């Protein structure tokens, strides 16, 4: 199978769906002729035509409002929000309309739209190009939230999201677009081509929503992660020697609760890692779920390693980013607490 980086995999997924389903169309800021600021839609307008992939005005609320109408007509729009940090102007349309339409119309109307947005830190983007807003969507009934960690999953999950009958917020960890960044910014980035999970079928395939993937088996501590933090967690496990079981959640809501509880019941210990600010981050929900379901198995407090409760400061990229050192230290604490 061809090795793809994550951008190529996303591009391939959209190319494939434009090919298969004429109800699929793509629009967003700079996605047409230019191909998107991260090149995810490069070549798609040229290949499939202007009406299938085009530029839109800078109005995220408008992008989503229009998508709701298109979805009601029967189309499956794939909307790119240039950075997750800029999704808030669309928050009312997402929370009040996208998420509720099927419910409030008792199934008369649905909203089969996919909202793509690059998210996360590690690129010196400062506080408005580095955010991780996933928890602002997991709290909203009616939304699915998907976050891939490899090119293979990025393609399979994006196709599954586009085909899903319900709205999907598809967050792309932009720091790993080009390679499995593990938090070691001082080292050169290994390109995806050198990573087995870059093997991606050229054609149509899906990775089902709602299923986690155990990327490292282990008996000592369960690590729950997604996006870039999956690779950071793997690095931390390798460097500390802690026999961690690292689970890539992939779909963070509805989360694969069975996979989580099975693992924690086995290890008795749990560490949660995400880039988002700590308070009311998705880690809080994971912690509560694990505590409620695995209380009698827990041998140590569940810990959270997260971004700080501050905006993401430009000069402190690595002081802010929860890298392998912080994750590793927490891993040791959780593993060694008696």
């Amino acid at each position, binding site marked *: 199978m061809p090795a793809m980086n994550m951008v190529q995999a996303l591009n391939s997924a959209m190319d494939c769906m434009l090919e298969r389903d004429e109800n699929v169309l793509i629009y967003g800021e700079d996605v047409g002729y230019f191909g998107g600021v991260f090149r995810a839609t490069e070549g798609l307008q040229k290949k499939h035509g202007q009406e299938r992939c085009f530029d839109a005005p800078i109005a995220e609320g408008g992008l989503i409002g229009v998508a709701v109408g298109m979805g009601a007509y029967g189309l499956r729009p794939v909307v790119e929000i240039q950075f997750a940090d800029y999704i808030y102007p669309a928050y009312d*349309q997402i929370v009040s309309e996208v998420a509720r339409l099927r419910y409030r119309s008792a199934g008369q109307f649905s909203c089969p739209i996919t909202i793509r947005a690059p998210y996360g830190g590690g690129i010196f983007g400062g506080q408005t190009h580095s955010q991780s807003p996933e928890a602002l969507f997991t709290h909203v009934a009616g939304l699915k939230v998907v976050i891939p960690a490899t090119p293979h999953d990025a393609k399979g999950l994006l196709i599954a999201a586009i085909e899903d009958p319900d709205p999907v917020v598809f967050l792309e960890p932009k720091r790993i677009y080009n390679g499995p960044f593990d938090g070691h910014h001082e080292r050169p980035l290994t390109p995806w081509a050198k990573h087995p999970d870059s093997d991606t079928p050229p054609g149509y395939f899906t990775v089902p929503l709602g299923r986690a993937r155990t990327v490292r088996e282990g008996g000592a501590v369960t690590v729950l992660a997604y996006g870039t933090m999956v690779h950071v967690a793997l690095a931390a496990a390798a460097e500390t020697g802690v026999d961690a079981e690292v689970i890539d959640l992939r779909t963070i809501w509805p989360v694969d609760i069975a996979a989580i509880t099975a693992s924690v019941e086995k290890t008795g210990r749990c560490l949660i890692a995400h880039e988002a600010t700590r308070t009311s981050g998705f880690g809080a929900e994971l912690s509560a779920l694990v505590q409620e379901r695995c209380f009698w198995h827990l041998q140590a407090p569940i810990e959270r390693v997260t971004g700080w409760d501050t905006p993401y400061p430009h000069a402190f990229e690595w002081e802010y980013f929860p890298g392998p050192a912080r994750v590793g230290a927490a891993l040791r604490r959780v593993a060694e607490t008696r």
Partner: protein
Amino acid sequence: MPRANRHAPLRPNALSLRIPEPRERPGEPLDFGNLRLSRPGALPRPPLDATAADIRDLAYGLIGVLTKDGRAVGPWNPGLPVQVLERGLRAMMLTRAYDDRMYRAQRQGKTSFYMKCTGEEAVAVAQALALAADDMCFPTYRQQGLLIARGYPLAEMMDQVFSNGRDPLKGRQLPVLYSARDFGVFSISGNLGTQYSQAVGWAMASAYKHDRRIAAGWIGEGSTAEGDFHHALTFAAVYRAPVILNIVNNQYAISSFHGIAGDADAPFASRGIGYGLPALRVDGNDFLAVFAATAWAAERARANLGATVIELVTYRAAGHSTSDDPNVYRPPEEAKIWPLGDPIDRLKSHLIAEGAWSEERHAELEKTLIEEVRAAAREAEAVGTLGVGDKPSSATMFEDIFRDQPWHLREQRQQAGV
């Protein structure tokens, strides 16, 4: 003196804030100075392919057809056959009878909430008749006339208002937030403005699929201040979407008057001008004018010439909803002396002037319609009213969040013991 605007600066050349005030408050003389009226028949009806730039003036006048004495005059006279006028009159009268009944039902505690469109019936009814049956409507809660004109069963509307066991929306929505896909009416949102850009999206989809159907969106003058209004006009202009963007200016939001939404220095219709969209300002209580303007915009959209903005100038004769008393914030007599009159009276007078109608037939029809409503109410109330009788099963509360119910909702349903 609180009411007065401190326009006289305190210090020489000091700035001051202007807080718009209506010309009338309870106990004050009435004056409709800001209405910008035109003589019926006075304004031209441009060709379909006129550019927005050619017809800017139409945003500042008031397109009208019906004269005081009930004659239909001028280029906008749609010259409709009597049968159509009678259908329109009937639908408006039925809408009013329905509103009255449901309003009383709420007062009797049969439901939690209700909103009338009394005085504004011509807007939804005439527009429903001017659109094709399969054109898609994205209304607010005040266009129940669309459903009624399109023949949606009254009893089913009542089922929704009562959230009873037959409510097509399974008791999930506040009364009057209908959804009727099969009648081309989109799910009405409780959040103002959101439907406006959605209407544009539906129209873009129709154009994308080389369909022939167009969309229509409605928004209240107060809600034009929301960002969605601007998004709708922007996207409609950019992609030349086949959509009609209606602004229903019924003079009030809840308690605040149109000036708070920003029409002190320019009418709402003129908002369309800056986007290069044709903008029509129409007497919303003149059935013929509303029909003609809507038909013009619909033809234009179907000819692939894009969107039209229509301001429909009308008056909210009732309270905003069952939750407010309008006499607290506006003069009670205002409705009666409203310069544009009542849409039902005006169409009635026209039909009578045309010799096609009479006071007797009118009274007769009114009786019939009240009876029709009463029968529907009996049927719906027999099923159930809010909290009484048959209601949707509680298990449905956990359905339709997603097409397929995920584990957490299954679990919660079990916890709820339903």
